[in-house]
């Protein structure tokens, strides 16, 4: 027995305590623990249990900063860390008893939150199940209580357990520890690695590492299998205990499958996946300790959210209502002309899908990913999923292949419904979902793509099966994804009643009735036709490349359904305007019947709307503002947009009925710390309150906690202000705010002024230098010219253009093209541009952003 050597990075020797007491067999042993004190902390104790190969060092950041009123105790298991080497082999069951003995010796009688990692998970859960009366919460990270059904045993552990490897890797060398740390992202510094190695310097100090690996019950009949099964079975005792699951998804051992298994067993758990983090998530995720502390502190303010949910019309209600209507519901534009599906047919398909999915084994609450282009099949699948009570995971190709992979892995669907191309992509993503193919496939292709069944077969099955019970309004309905323009795409979870409210908000705002017909050239809105109960068509275009929409394709879709409403993104509309002269006369007549043109997804220049309106002489143009998390938030029509002119940002109009918008002012450091107020001329984070706001971010507890830290409000991450007339202006994203010595500077207003210079196609205002002392740099996209410093006349023109704002531009750089998102082809990745500008202006290589 010895204490940690002094000088280990991040460790205070004052935390180390030796605790003596009987072990599971009654023999007196000495444990080493880290203890933040004080004894008798008013709120209770966090009991931190490490896994293998590790020690209490893993929890040092939590010990250093306990949640207010709490004490943190991080233990070293016997034979591990700086606890006694017993010379015995300690399996799972005795280790739970050991922990019990230790907490008795520690006299932990008050409330306890267990915090555990890796194989500390089952041990801590074993303890927790025995102490439910004093258990205030459970925190688990990258652990498991069971081999998930159908999963291969973790390859790494299997490899390490072959007899020769086991001894060589775990005991004779430090490779098992080193290997574990090497999975860390980013790799911990040398000082931290030294900290982890500290107790395992000699072979005899490492014996337990091998024994721990051997004690993993990978197969039935293993000596610890029964103990583990008992712990897994006992989890129902925790049904009323708050649980937090914190996960590093890049873990090659405890993959997302283990997370899903734990969620299945504890559906009430709060979940956060640290995208990019690996097995040692308490080490990898810089905010881990702070996030645990926040969650523990929130235990006091937990209350079941009660929503007075007025009974809404189900999402499939309009289809049901028009089930005898033989007029077109969905029209697909194909090379052979439009093909029509009537309301009657659509309703039948939706019911068949719902019944078929249920008969196939899909449970209410199961997640089903959809990789199907907008059209009849997608509509049937989506509304069928909703009618079944399953959750639709909507992954649009606009995320790009990598973004789709990240999104799908985060949502962890049990099923994927996809076209063959989508299935081929999904095959490479390491999901374990069952594949349901849209469209027919030869048998060999079915095998290659791992297809379980097809949508046609599901519908055939459904036509002979009973319709399942419809889900409650409070059931989970869908997970959509943010565009990923500011970090990895985030899953956004909606309940049925929230989507109903969204549908009703759109219907009210634009006075949509059964007599309207919709052409949607913008992904998500193509799906709303059926919910609104109106006929819809998608023009012949590649929805992942909005700029492929031609005026003729749009006009033909309008002609096919005699459309009154047209939805498009600015990128799509720009190409429409450009190709407008080619529209055939027949279609021009149909275009005259359009009453409303909606542009959404990104700011739209009024001149562009004016130009498109020349094709649609009876139409009014509107631009709704909103985001994946809540839409619509505000709306502006073209005359108002023109009246607003230029200002600090993009004018998005006034909040729509039923939506409250307010501002949380930015402080001098650029942080939105101000109270949420509806004052004018205050720049801050835009906060929204609406019935159609998302339920929460999916498996992103930390993100959700930050976005909804003011109860009832959603913090949008957009920065803006209200003008004197009560119109909302968006000045940029919070993460793109430049913080100079004179305070925060928002990018969009400066960019708009710069874009008024004729040669400039697009501009990005970014900061260089440390936050708080940043300088503003304007990066302009000219198209043809190369990357580097702007020539003096352009530089001076930019400074002149922004002169009235009083903001100084330290330098002007040019790029051939600015990096933008795929979905909207317009959201500039200013973080990346800023890093590039920093490199160039430091005197480094120019290259490209």
């Amino acid at each position, binding site marked *: 027995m010895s204490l940690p050597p002094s000088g280990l990075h991040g460790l205070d020797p004052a935390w180390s305590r030796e605790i003596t007491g009987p072990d599971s067999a009654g023999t007196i042993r000495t444990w080493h623990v880290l203890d933040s004190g004080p004894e008798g902390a008013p709120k209770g104790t966090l009991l931190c249990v490490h896994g293998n190969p590790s020690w209490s060092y893993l929890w040092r950041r939590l010990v250093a900063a306990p949640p207010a009123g709490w004490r943190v105790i991080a233990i070293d298991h016997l034979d591990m860390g700086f606890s006694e080497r017993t010379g015995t082999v300690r399996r799972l069951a005795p280790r739970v008893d050991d922990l019990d003995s230790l907490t008795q010796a520690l006299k932990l009688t008050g409330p306890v939150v267990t915090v555990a990692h890796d194989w500390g998970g089952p041990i801590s859960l074993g303890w927790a199940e025995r102490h439910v009366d004093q258990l205030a919460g459970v925190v688990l990270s990258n652990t498991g209580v069971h081999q998930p059904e159908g999963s291969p045993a973790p390859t790494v552990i299997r490899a390490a357990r072959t007899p020769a490897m086991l001894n060589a890797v775990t005991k004779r060398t430090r490779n098992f520890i080193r290997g574990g740390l090497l999975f860390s992202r980013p790799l911990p510094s040398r000082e931290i690695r030294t900290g982890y190695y500290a107790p395992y310097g000699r072979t005899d100090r490492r014996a337990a590492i091998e024994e721990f690996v051997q004690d993993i019950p990978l197969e039935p009949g293993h000596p610890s299998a029964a103990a583990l099964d008992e712990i897994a079975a006992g989890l129902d005792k925790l049904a009323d205990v708050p649980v937090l699951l914190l996960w590093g998804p890049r873990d090659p051992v405890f993959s997302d499958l283990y997370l899903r298994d734990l969620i299945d067993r504890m559906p009430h758990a709060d979940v956060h996946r640290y995208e990019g983090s690996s097995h040692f998530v308490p080490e990898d995720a810089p905010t881990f300790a702070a996030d645990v502390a926040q969650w523990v502190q929130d235990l006091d303010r937990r209350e079941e959210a009660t929503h007075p949910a007025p009974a809404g019309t189900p999402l499939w209600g309009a289809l049901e209502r028009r089930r005898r209507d033989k007029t077109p519901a969905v029209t697909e534009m194909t090379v052979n002309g439009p093909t029509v599906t009537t309301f009657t047919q659509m309703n039948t398909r939706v019911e068949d899908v719902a019944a078929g999915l249920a008969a196939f084994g899909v449970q209410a609450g199961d997640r089903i990913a959809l990789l199907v282009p907008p059209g009849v099949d997608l509509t049937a699948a989506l509304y069928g999923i909703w009618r079944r009570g399953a959750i639709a995971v909507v992954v649009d190709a606009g995320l790009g292949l990598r973004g789709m992979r990240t999104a799908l892995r985060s949502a962890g669907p049990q099923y994927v419904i996809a076209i063959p191309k989508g299935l081929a992509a999904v095959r490479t993503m390491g999901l374990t979902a069952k594949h349901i193919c849209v469209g027919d496939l030869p048998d060999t292709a079915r095998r290659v793509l791992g297809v379980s069944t097809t949508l046609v077969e599901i519908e055939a099955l459904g036509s002979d099966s009973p319709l399942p019970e419809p889900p409650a309004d409070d059931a989970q309905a869908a997970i959509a994804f943010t565009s990923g323009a500011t970090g990895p795409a985030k899953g956004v979870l909606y309940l049925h009643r929230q989507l109903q409210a969204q549908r009703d908000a759109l219907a009210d705002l634009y006075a949509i009735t059964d007599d309207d017909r919709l052409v949607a050239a913008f992904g998500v809105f193509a799906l709303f036709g059926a919910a609104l109960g109106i006929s819809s068509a998608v023009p012949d275009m590649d929805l992942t490349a909005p700029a492929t929409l031609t005026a003729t394709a749009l006009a033909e879709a309008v002609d096919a359904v005699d459309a009154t409403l047209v939805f498009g993104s600015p990128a799509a509309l720009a190409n429409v305007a450009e190709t407008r002269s080619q529209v055939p006369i027949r279609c021009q007549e149909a275009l005259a019947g359009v009453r409303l043109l909606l542009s959404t997804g990104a700011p739209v220049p009024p001149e562009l709307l004016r130009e498109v309106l020349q094709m649609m002489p009876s139409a009014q143009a509107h631009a709704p503002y909103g985001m994946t998390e809540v839409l619509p938030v505000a709306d502006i029509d073209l005359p108002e947009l023109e009246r607003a002119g230029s200002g600090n940002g993009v004018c998005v109009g006034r909040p729509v009925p039923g939506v409250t918008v307010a501002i949380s002012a930015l402080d001098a450091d650029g942080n939105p710390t101000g109270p949420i107020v509806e004052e004018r001329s205050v720049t801050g984070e835009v906060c929204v309150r609406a019935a159609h706001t998302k339920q929460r971010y999916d498996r992103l507890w930390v993100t959700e906690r930050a976005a909804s830290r003011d109860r009832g409000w959603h913090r949008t991450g957009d920065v803006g202000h209200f003008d004197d007339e009560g119109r909302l202006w968006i000045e940029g994203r919070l993460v793109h705010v430049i913080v100079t010595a004179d305070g925060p500077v928002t990018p969009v207003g400066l960019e708009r002024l710069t874009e008024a210079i004729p040669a400039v196609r697009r501009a990005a205002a970014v900061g260089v230098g440390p936050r708080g002392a940043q300088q503003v740099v304007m990066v302009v996209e000219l198209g043809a010219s190369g990357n580097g410093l702007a020539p*003096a006349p352009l530089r001076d023109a930019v400074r002149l253009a922004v002169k009235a704002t009083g903001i100084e531009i330290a*330098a002007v750089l040019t790029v051939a093209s600015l990096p933008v998102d795929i979905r909207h082809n317009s959201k500039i990745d200013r973080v990346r541009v800023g890093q590039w500008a920093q490199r160039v202006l430091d005197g480094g290589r120019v290259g490209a952003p």
Partner: protein
Amino acid sequence: MRVLLTGASSLLGSQVVRQLTARGDHVSTLQRRPTDVAAELGLTEHLGDINDAALVAEAVEGVDSVIHLAARVGVVGSREQFFQTNVVGTRTLLAAARAAGVSRFVFVSSPSVAHTGEALAGNGAEPAYPRHAKGQYSRSKALAEVEVLAADAPGFATIAVRPHLVWGPGDTQLVGRIVDRAKTGRLGLVSGGRALIDTTYIDNAADALVAAVDHIDAGHGRAFIVSNGQPRTVEEMIERICAAAGVPGPSLTVPQPVAWAGGAVAEAAWRLARRTDDPPMTRFLAGQLGTAHWFDLRETERVLQWRPRVDLDEGFERLSSYYATHP
């Protein structure tokens, strides 16, 4: 207040003398040769070497504050020569000032004392680093600064002010050289002149030294960076200086490694030839012109209650009028 200023023959020195005198301070100076400004304002001048203990003791007699600006600058000279003037000279002055009961000691330093070669973008005043600063000048100034700040004690407040690249009308160090070289078509840019650099218009630097005397109680024992707080690319600065002087802009651009190697060669050649002027390129200069150097002024502004008064546009206008009358 009675103030002794060393190094009054420089542009910055004479500007500080004028500002202090204008507000009613009693100023005397110490430097090798008589200066125009002292003659013009009728000030007492102590003429001679900073290492002449008797002269220095006489100069600090009855003085409240010392502003120590005298230094050996540039790149030519041996390690011993830089050490003698910049370190030993400072020691002599420090000892004399303390012995004479001077209460405030302002040391004029340089941001290069904390610069070890990498780009500086928005850095604060980090500690001087005598071992790793680049070049003899910076190393000697770094050592001197460390000693000055270490001498800070109750009743004897010391402070270091680090103005970065001071320029203005009549400046021969920075502006003069650029203009001379541009006139002969020998002006090049390192790395395309992309590096963002801070500079200090002369009046702002002088203001900061006066502010350091006034607010030494708040900032004693510490170093403060001074600049215009308006970093610009090297290309833009050189181009605007040339424009103000009515000379052609830079004619060629040199990649950083080439400039550095060229500097090394030139320094060796100059040493062999025992030349006393500065070579056209030095390694120090290549580093200065090829990597970013700009700073976070918030601490300086807060503690010294100072802000740059003359912005770049105004500075260039004044430079332009100056050249209009001094072709």
